[in-house]
């Protein structure tokens, strides 16, 4: 029973494992304990999430971390200033390729345990031999242009000397269609969140070659998205919601609860899949291929010290990749807007841990290739990439 004084919050979500905090908060009493009646609305596309939060159908939403940045910088339609006051999950994505591509990569020396440097290095030769055979470039799919998936895939390719805009094709597909597209031979690989990699592995369609936590350790994937205006008008409710979601995160992060969580998420109202496909990722396991289960404790994580607190440095990394791939132009003002979008103040106030003031000197862990990321020197960081989009002639 919800208390009569409970404040209703409507949240849009996409059926993915990292909608877990919202689902657990709504279903296991964490929201109610904070006086919130959390109503979840399942959506079919990120475009719908963006449109419906923008016009006020949703108060908050499960969003790809770069989406609130794209909205704040007016890079998409129906753009309104937004905030990402909390991370809803770290990691959780993987890159899967078709079995024939994997056989070639293996022949070119790809690491069998998901090392992104090694698997990436095996790709240029694979692309070359494919070009000699059929003339077709390799095709990859991601879930959205403004997504961690897009930037992780592109970073991995570019680190191996592959220009993602010239040497391969990258398209956008809804996650549930990716295994089918691999089966139909329409794509050769994809980057997506779980369970959509595992499903291809279990159906012997594909092979996981690397994953987000190996590309960029402990990095944010989904965030709680709110419009600036909703946050301003509902400050107390937002703080209560953050507290509820943090409690839900502690529960979800406990692997003893993984079976219960998998059953909840697999239900028809949420992911509508077999609970068994959800369990591995929720317990730090990743099946790279039939018979090869890798232990990756940080594969998908929901909690940990400060793990869910947004940082300006994380926001700026996404912005750096938007600029790198020609989705945005760099400016100091926009960089400041990005830092404000990923402001940690609301999160710290909600938990009573005081304001840290978005200290950029605490840079996140470097990415797999060891290239130093200094968020305080973003323009030079972007300029340092040998492969990046060239400005299109007007």
């Amino acid at each position, binding site marked *: 029973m919800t208390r009569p004084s409970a404040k209703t919050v409507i949240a849009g979500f996409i059926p993915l494992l990292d909608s877990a905090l919202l689902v657990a908060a709504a279903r296991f009493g964490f929201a109610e304990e904070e006086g919130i009646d959390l109503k979840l609305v399942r959506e*079919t596309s990120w475009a719908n999430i963006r449109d419906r939060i923008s016009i006020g159908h949703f108060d908050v939403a499960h969003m790809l971390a770069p989406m609130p940045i794209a909205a704040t910088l007016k890079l998409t339609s129906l753009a309104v200033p937004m905030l990402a006051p909390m991370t809803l999950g770290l990691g959780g994505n993987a890159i899967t390729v078709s079995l024939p591509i994997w056989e070639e990569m293996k022949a070119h020396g790809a690491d069998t345990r998901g090392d992104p440097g090694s698997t990436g290095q095996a790709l240029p030769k694979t692309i070359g031999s494919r070009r000699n055979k059929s003339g077709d470039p390799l095709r990859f799919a991601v879930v959205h242009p403004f997504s961690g998936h897009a930037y992780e895939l592109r970073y991995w390719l570019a680190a191996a000397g592959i220009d993602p805009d010239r040497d391969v094709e990258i*398209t*956008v597909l809804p996650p549930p*269609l990716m295994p089918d597209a691999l089966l139909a031979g329409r794509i050769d690989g994809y980057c997506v969140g779980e369970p959509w990699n595992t499903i291809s592995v279990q159906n012997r369609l594909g092979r996981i070659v690397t994953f987000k936590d190996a590309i960029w350790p402990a990095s944010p994937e989904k965030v709680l998205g709110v419009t600036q205006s909703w946050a301003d008008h509902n400050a107390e409710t937002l703080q209560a919601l953050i507290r509820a979601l943090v409690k839900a995160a502690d529960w979800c992060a406990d692997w003893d609860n993984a079976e219960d969580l998998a059953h909840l998420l697999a239900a028809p109202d949420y992911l509508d899949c077999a609970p068994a496909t959800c369990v591995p990722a929720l317990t730090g396991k990743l099946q790279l291929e039939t018979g090869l289960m890798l232990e990756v404790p940080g594969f998908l994580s929901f909690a940990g010290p400060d793990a869910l607190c947004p940082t300006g440095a994380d926001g700026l990394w996404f912005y750096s990749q938007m600029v790198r791939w020609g989705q945005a132009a760099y400016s100091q003002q926009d960089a400041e807007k990005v830092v404000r979008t990923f402001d940690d103040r609301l999160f710290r106030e909600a938990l009573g841990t005081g304001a840290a003031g978005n200290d950029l000197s605490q840079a996140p862990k470097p990415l797999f290739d060891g290239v130093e990321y200094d968020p305080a020197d973003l323009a030079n960081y972007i300029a340092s990439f040998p492969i990046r989009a060239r400005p299109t002639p007007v």
Partner: protein
Amino acid sequence: MSTSLSILVIDDNRIRASIIEQGLRDAGHDRVILIDQMDGLVRQITDIDPDVIVIDLENPNRDQLEHIFQISRAVRRPIAMFVDKSESGSIEAAVDAGVSAYVVDGLKKERVKPILDMAISRFRAFSRLANELEEAKSELADRKTIDRAKGILMKSRGISEPEAYDLLRRTAMNQSRKIIDVAQSLIIASGLLEG
């Protein structure tokens, strides 16, 4: 009307798509194309080269569609989202009705708005129809349930059909329940007792 606009309707619900198509044709738009197949969307859009695209919000391919617009190489003219800020009322109306639209850059709002308004009203009409159909279906199911309950009473108590219905009705009234609820629990109960 000068040159007529070509309008692409993307909707995998064929009935709804044809309702929209009919509406647009009735309003004098003769270049309306329906797509319910998402395969090779880029090529289809390049071939059709539409001025306006109408897509239902349930369609999971909206993200792909917007990506296609972003890589403008794929389409001859850059396609911008139709709904701009000055039109917040019609944005809400569209989302409420479950439809979204995109137009090529540079088209005059006066030419596009009637198309969106038409799509919105046809989407609304469709969901009204769908609801009515759903209600009709459940009414039919209710009637079957009540018939089964009557049959059980007729057999177990040796009474006539009108008497059985009367018994159901009186039981419902006495307990402030719906007849269908009484009929359902009666069927469940007798099913449990049978074995």
